[in-house]
């Protein structure tokens, strides 16, 4: 059949694509940052010429632009993201290293929470099709998609943290500190997953094999879990890629609000400080994570659903 060869070709094609996209993004970030008028070392105080020249030499800014570009690209190939321009003696890689730990933890918890909550809500809605619970769940889901996450995050912080004092307002020192940021991150993806699960569940529940299962006399629970849910969960898998994107943008906001020293907070700070090397490094890092997530989605989808031809282009 050539299934394996097909698979390898598919994976190679995707990897090539990721490589090209990263190359485009890296070039784009480089030239965009170069296009900014002025220089990162401009400040209110006049810097002595000699010091300025030394600084520029240190960051290679005195070289012609094509040479800077080649150096930058070469460094990237060696996974060297350079030094932070605002935090002295700190490499971009080390900043990413410290921040990523928190962001990853939070992100994984949020992904688990949103999948569990979203799938549960979706099933509840589908099983109560056109009844009160369905309308109610759908309303909650639409609401979840509609409220910007900084409103959710600050609302949670204000009511549960400041007013009721159930949780700490900021930081990540106690296990309970994870609760609020996690919820704030999970609302949007959970709402999406609930809608996806509901509509695919409704489709699956009318399928012939469910009727067969029912006429065989299987219990409702077995039908639900073994037959319906397994198939209904497929579209949710395609959502892994966009969900990662949502969680990342969400984490930028949530970490800032809850004062968590993760990647998102560094990202906001790097933008407000105009720390160009850090912005570039974080952008590329985020891009790698997102593309890895999309790649895994494509792969997972191809594995789970044998009906999918590996050549098909993914959506979303």
């Amino acid at each position, binding site marked *: 059949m050539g299934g394996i060869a097909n698979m390898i070709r598919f994976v190679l094609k995707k990897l090539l*694509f*990721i490589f*090209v*996209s990263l190359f*485009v*993004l890296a070039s*784009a*970030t480089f030239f*965009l*940052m170069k*296009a*900014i008028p002025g220089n990162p070392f401009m400040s209110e105080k006049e810097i002595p010429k000699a010091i300025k020249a030394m600084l520029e030499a240190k960051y290679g800014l005195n070289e012609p632009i094509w040479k800077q570009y080649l150096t930058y690209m070469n460094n990237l190939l060696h996974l060297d993201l350079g030094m932070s321009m605002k935090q002295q003696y700190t490499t971009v890689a080390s900043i990413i290293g410290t921040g990523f730990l928190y962001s990853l933890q939070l992100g994984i918890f949020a992904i688990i929470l949103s999948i569990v909550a979203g799938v549960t809500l979706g099933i509840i809605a589908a099983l109560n099709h056109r009844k009160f619970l369905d309308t109610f769940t759908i309303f909650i889901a*639409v*609401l979840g*998609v*509609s*409220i*910007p996450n*900084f*409103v959710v995050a*600050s*609302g949670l*912080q*204000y009511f549960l943290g*400041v007013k009721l004092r159930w949780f700490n307002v900021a930081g990540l020192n106690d296990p309970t500190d994870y609760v609020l940021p996690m919820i704030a991150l999970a609302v949007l993806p959970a709402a999406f997953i609930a809608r996806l699960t*509901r*509509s695919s569940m*409704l*489709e699956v529940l009318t399928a012939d094999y469910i009727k067969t299962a029912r006429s065989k006399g299987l219990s409702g629970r077995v039908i639900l879990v073994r037959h319906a849910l397994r198939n209904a969960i497929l579209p949710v898998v395609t959502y892994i890629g966009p969900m990662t*994107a949502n969680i*990342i*943008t969400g984490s*930028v*906001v949530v970490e*800032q*609000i809850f004062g968590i020293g993760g990647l998102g907070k560094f990202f*906001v700070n790097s*933008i*407000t400080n*105009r720390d160009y090397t850090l*912005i570039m490094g974080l*952008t590329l890092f*985020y*891009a790698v994570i*997102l*593309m890895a997530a*999309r790649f895994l989605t494509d792969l997972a989808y191809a594995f789970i659903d044998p009906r999918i031809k590996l050549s098909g*282009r993914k959506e979303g």
Partner: protein
Amino acid sequence: MAIGNAETPKTLPTSDAHLTKADFAKLDKSEKKGELVVRESISAWKDAWLRLRSNKYAMVSLVVLLLIVLMAIIGQSIAGYDYRSQDLMETNIKPNADHWFGTDDLGRDMFARTWMGAGISLQVGLYAALVDLMIGVIMGGIMGYFGGKVDEILNRFCEIMYSIPNMLIVILLIVVMEPSMFTIVLALSITGWISMAWIVRGQIMQLKNQEYVLASRSLGAGAGRILFRHLIPNAMGPIIVTLTMTVPNAIFAEAFLSFLGLGVQSPAASLGTMINDALKAMTIYPWRMLFPAVLISLTMLCFNIFGDGLRDALDPKMKK
């Protein structure tokens, strides 16, 4: 065995037995119009509108949206205050009869600012949607209609552009350019048009083999005419649905940019920038957050519900 079959001929009423010669008589001329369609014929658009009108959630959302647009236009004149005028004696006051939504940290009237911000947010959404529409329809039309090499090259380009996380590009662009409504819309549309182009492309590919295209071509119509007079109008349903979804996405994106301090700059404000300003002092002056936050959520909610309703109305097959 086949009991049922054996019995059917007997039980079946032989209807022609009732027919008499009179039934075969020529009809009078007055009855000639018997088969004329009396009911007014319903166009696809009218049909969609009828379906949409019966969806009460969508209609309520539409009304609320129109109200928000109206208030965004007239809200400032009702407020009695200019959105820019500062009053440092009256900063951070609670909503009262004079300042209906209170004032912000510079004593600016929040009622005027909220509606002005709603206007800016809506404009960002609208302009982004329009730019997406223009680029997306042209690119998608070209890809779908010409196919072949042109399609392949453009499609590859789109795929690469699309695979770059768009929010990152948007942020980078705004960091480089000065944040303003123009640059925000520009940055949002740089990657935003791609999904529109794909929708149009898919539609055109389905439609271009229809007979009316062949008819038009045999009458000597050029590609431009076929595309814009015949194909695009027939693909309008999905295009409109995509558009209604683009608007809230752009509003969301603008709010996110505002959060990063890359939104519309002071003294102008979008809902996002107002929320961001209010966040800094939320524990002390929570009401400053309330109105912009509720308004942006309400706007998004209405767009989402209306967009869903519109999709169901324009494409009843999709309805779940």
